[in-house]
């Protein structure tokens, strides 16, 4: 049986478009609302990245930090996050879910216990921002045993030698960070340059699904139609903040935004 993440890419490919990956923070702004957001964007997105909020994030820009602090302030705990995913997976049209977070949350939960709960609640993949290769070798093997995709990150600073080793050790999907930036930065590199790096990765590792993230917004997304997948995060978090500030419904507005994003790459 194909891994659900692989299946999602396959489906998008059959429709001649990149897969759309969204990123929202679990528990933003409340447990209930974040579940509602996941359910509603399910109609338009192919894979849902769910941020596990942490209060000393070293790679997140202002938008995602705001979302994470809001969720933590509203009392989100690791067990609540697992419950959100369990509930989401019971909904009508669930998509593959990837957790994205920092290693300390996994470390405190206990690696094995964490993976057991991921498996039980239906998490399909993991991105651990501060557990790079080769430090992640043992953990990524543990993930594989549980049929959970451990998603390796690549960046413009990754050397060719490293790139080869990392892709060799990666599972079905890899994540290319488009530029030197925290999340939510303005795209400061031309799409052409990003795509040429992307092609380099695909040449080395043609069978892995490679997504691009960081700086992908409604404005920039259509420049990257030729890729396997694209991640939009900060713009969605920003929209949630905007709605809360203007007393609008984030569920409806975020869903609309994701629908527009999908149209731009279809």
């Amino acid at each position, binding site marked *: 049986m194909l891994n659900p993440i692989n299946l999602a890419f396959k489906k998008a490919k059959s429709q001649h478009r990149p897969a759309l990956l969204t990123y929202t923070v679990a528990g933003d702004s409340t447990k209930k609302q974040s579940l509602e957001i996941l359910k509603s964007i399910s109609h338009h997105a192919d894979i849902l990245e769910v941020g596990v909020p*942490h*209060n*000393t*994030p*070293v*790679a*997140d*820009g202002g938008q995602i*930090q705001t979302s994470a*602090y809001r969720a*933590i302030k509203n009392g989100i*705990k*690791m067990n609540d996050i697992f419950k959100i995913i369990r509930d989401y997976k019971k909904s009508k049209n669930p998509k593959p879910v990837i957790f994205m977070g*920092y*290693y*300390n*949350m996994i*470390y*405190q*939960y206990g690696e094995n216990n964490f993976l057991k709960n991921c498996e039980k609640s239906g998490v399909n993949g993991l991105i651990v*921002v*501060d*557990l*790079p*290769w080769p*430090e992640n070798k043992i953990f990524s093997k543990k993930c594989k045993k549980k049929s959970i995709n451990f998603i390796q*990150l*690549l*960046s*413009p*600073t*990754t*050397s060719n030698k*490293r790139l080869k080793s990392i892709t060799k050790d990666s599972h079905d999907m890899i994540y290319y*960070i488009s530029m*030197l*930036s*925290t999340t939510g*930065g303005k795209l400061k590199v031309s799409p052409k340059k990003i795509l040429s790096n992307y092609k380099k990765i695909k040449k080395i590792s043609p069978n892995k699904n490679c997504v691009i993230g960081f700086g992908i917004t409604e404005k920039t997304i259509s420049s990257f139609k030729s890729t396997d997948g694209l991640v939009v995060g900060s713009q969605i978090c920003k929209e949630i903040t905007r709605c809360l500030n203007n007393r609008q419904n984030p569920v409806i507005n975020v869903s609309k935004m994701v629908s527009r994003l999908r149209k731009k790459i279809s």
Partner: protein
Amino acid sequence: MKLKKRIPVIDQGDKFGFWGGKFGGNFVPETLKKPIEDLEIQFNKLKKDKNFLKERDKYFKNWIGTPTRFIKLNELTKHVGGAEIWSKVVSDANGGAHKIYNATVHCLLARRSGKKVIIGDTGAGYAGKMLSMAAKKFGLKCKIFMGAKDIERQQPNVKAMKKNGAEVVPVYSGSKTLVDAVSECMRYWVANCDTTAMCVGSTVGPAVFVRICGWSTSQISRELKTQLIDHFGTVPKKVKLYNCVGGGSSSFGFWNEFMDYDKKQVEFIGVEAGGPAKSKKHAAPLTFGSKIGILHGAAQYVNQNSDGQIEETESISAGLDYPGVSPLHCFLKDTKRARYTAASDEEALKAYKIVTRFENLRPSLEPSHAFAVAIKEAKKLSKDTVVIINSCGDAYKDRAILEKKLGKKYVKSN
């Protein structure tokens, strides 16, 4: 877990940068792997390069002003009535604190690697002030990240940074203190590591930063060893080295040269910030048995909740107000080479009052924590014991807090 002899502690980590197999490491985003590796290669090469060492020593001597004084506190010794009490007055160093050693070395490294900008974090403002001084000296542009709360309470150092031409970037996230400043500084480096060098202000962060800082501040104990031998003819039979511990850069530097001595001869006592006596919050992860966690790229004992969220700290001293502690100190604690304890805000203030009453010395609130414990313990120690406190910062920056807590009288005398 064992401490090896005759190998510098900074070089006792494994290939992944873990001391004792579990403290330190490199928990960093992929983007930082390359710049960190570059820095490691550069540092490992240069620390063995005679010309570089000569260059370092030249600036340490002529610009920082080494050695700093080693003085006997006669009146305090008489008042306490126990062990001999001495102080290593590291606040003599150019700029008024030990942070200058690390800042200078980082600027020398940055200059050699062709970087034009250097960034750094700061709590008490000393790391920032020194980095701004060194950056100016070596022609680098400088950006300092500082928590908004710290900017408010350490104004003299903020003014100094600005005067040196540095940009002070206020950090409003989280608790608005050092922990957030370090996070923001690392985030800025993630986005600008191709043009910018980063200086971590203490023996914290990814392993190479821990090593560079420890290597730099070790100047303190190199001097002290010579000074002890000059005065006593040898390293005395019973020496106790008291030092405050926030991130742990001054204490590590104060102890490093004595690492191989038996702890019965040279004992290390680290004093963490216990926070206000009535508060449950503190900045003393070693003393109060915090669990191991990951903070700012390194595994260490750190104040956190059961989920792994880093907890807010509280201390009168901005320089010690940090939820984690250097992996080096975690290693020294677990190998039992050093002993750790805490002093409360009130105890530190009381110690400041006592020291300034008897001696012509104005330790800042950070070393006042070390004085508090040293004074308490020296009473019970034999007269042939040599108690030495690292007075690693000057109280000038704390004027506003001291005036508020103790009244004008304690500030005027500054």
